């Protein structure tokens, strides 16, 4: 029987266009910042810090962009999962203080693993409940989605005050993750390297799932045209619940990393980072995981360089970045086909 799934060799087949232009923006921004920063050592420190920050924002934003892409749901309550995840991790780390303060990296990582696991399971379950109780009644109604998910965020923050108290909590880094690895004149902070590794792992895992599995194909197809996915016989609501749960769990992971990065924790931590998260998913292209990854790096680079060079415009700089990108590509850097 003829092999049917291999493409015949041919020179005149249309070539798949590779849109790499947006990828060059990040190195352009980084190189442009080098003469302004002056010191190469400082520049490397800022760049690594930006990559770490970018990876944490990506972990948080990746779930949200798929949630929007798949069901047009504007979830302003995503910040609640960031905060609750971080508080759950803090709760797990407290009785493990011996492991956290130990100089043994394996004990540090074991404590962190347990904390992250608890945060992801907790926020995943919370995400499932949030979708059923708060989001499901307002499918297709954007204004109500904004109002009710904002309300959910406020309620979650108040519940955090009730359960964990309203004061600022310390979230110390484990002993083995403090300090830096020195390479020549350059000092690379250990936790930032860990954050980059975690972010890259999440990105690669998402790419593998989205491109190599049937569930991934369904998610990509659903982001583009969910009606047609249903007409092929797939129950997209169930898929959406799964994406919502995974997106919430990733927010819990990102929240834990973010709190450790700042080494303090308040109930407002989710709301604070959500401004950057929304900028990231808008400039990346709503529903696009690749765009979200690139957008997170751009936002973090901009925030770190301007924070060092002109601190007063650090927040505004990302708004300007978003405006500039949307003027260039109104649908974002990597728009999903139908949007």
């Amino acid at each position: 029987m003829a092999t049917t799934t291999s493409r015949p060799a041919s020179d005149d087949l249309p070539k798949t266009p590779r849109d790499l232009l947006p990828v060059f923006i990040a190195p352009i921004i980084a190189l442009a910042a080098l003469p302004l920063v002056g010191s190469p050592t400082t520049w490397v420190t800022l760049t690594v810090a930006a990559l770490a920050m970018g990876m944490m924002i990506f972990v948080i934003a990746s779930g949200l962009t798929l949630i929007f892409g798949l069901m047009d749901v504007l979830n302003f309550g995503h910040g609640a999962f960031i905060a609750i995840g971080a508080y759950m991790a803090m709760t797990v780390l407290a009785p493990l203080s011996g492991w956290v303060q130990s100089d043994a990296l394996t004990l540090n990582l074991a404590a962190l693993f347990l904390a992250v696991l608890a945060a992801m399971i907790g926020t995943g379950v919370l995400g499932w409940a949030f979708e059923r109780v708060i989001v499901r009644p307002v499918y297709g109604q954007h204004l109500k989605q904004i109002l009710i998910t904002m309300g959910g965020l406020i309620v979650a923050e108040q519940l955090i005050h009730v359960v964990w108290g309203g004061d600022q909590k310390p979230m110390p880094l484990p002993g083995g993750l403090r300090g830096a690895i020195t390479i020549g004149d350059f000092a690379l902070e250990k936790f930032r390297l860990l954050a980059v590794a975690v972010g890259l792992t999440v990105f690669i895992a998402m790419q593998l799932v989205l491109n190599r599995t049937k569930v991934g194909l369904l998610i990509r197809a659903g982001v583009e045209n969910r009606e047609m996915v249903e007409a092929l016989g797939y129950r997209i609501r169930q898929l959406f619940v799964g994406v919502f749960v995974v997106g919430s769990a990733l927010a819990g992971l990102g929240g834990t990393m973010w709190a450790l990065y700042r080494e303090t924790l308040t109930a407002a931590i989710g709301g604070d980072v959500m401004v950057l998260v929304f900028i990231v998913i808008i400039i990346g292209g709503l529903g696009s995981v690749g765009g979200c990854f690139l957008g997170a790096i751009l936002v973090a680079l901009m925030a770190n360089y301007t924070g060092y060079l002109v601190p007063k415009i650090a927040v505004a700089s990302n708004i300007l970045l978003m405006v500039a990108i949307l003027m260039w590509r109104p649908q974002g850097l990597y728009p999903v086909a139908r949007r």
Partner: protein
Amino acid sequence: MSEPLLKLEGVHTHIGQYHILQGVDLVVPRGELTVLLGRNGAGKTTTLRTIMGLWPPSNGVITFDGQSIGGRATPDIARLGIGYVPESMGVFADLTVAENMRLAARLGAPDTARLDWIFGLFPALKRFWQLPAGLLSGGQKQMLSIARAIVEPKALILIDEPTKGIAPAIIEGMIAAFKELKRAETTILLVEQNFRFAASLGDSVAVMDDGRIVHRGTMQELAGDADLQTRLLGLSLAAHQ
């Protein structure tokens, strides 16, 4: 005469405040190609979308293979063995042709022999197998959309204006493909504006106007009666030849 595969009785559909289908009565006999004709805005696309559950009927009964499907969710209707080729074609532009077909084969990997049969109908799909569907021409997208609907055996296929905006050469290929589907005794409900295309394929025909079926009969009868064509459709086949 055997029970029709699909039957609509007094079906009404509202979209927002608009009353689109106003009591549609339609039968689709098993193993036949039924053509649904009518002017723009007559309600043909709404009829197909209502059958698929994409717009729920506000009244009336839709029976498929002896069971009522009116008001059921779209995935449940599709799982009964109904394939749908929408007017917009609905191909997933970011996915390759292969990935589009893989998704359409809901029950498992696409059957190799069936894929060979489909490649025989639409050779371009084999050629562009690993290409993102968004890069295909309009005609090739239409081929992919139809191929997706038949990658698994279906009891009924609903096809909405497959020739719209398609080059004549590709339409000829499509006619051959539909004839092949008919030989395989696939039941098809085809919405079409291209009367020549419809007349070359249809066994039976229904004509819609203002959300109702205003004529039912054989395609042979309609194709041979210029006065009837003019009265129902505002045209005659002779005028288009």
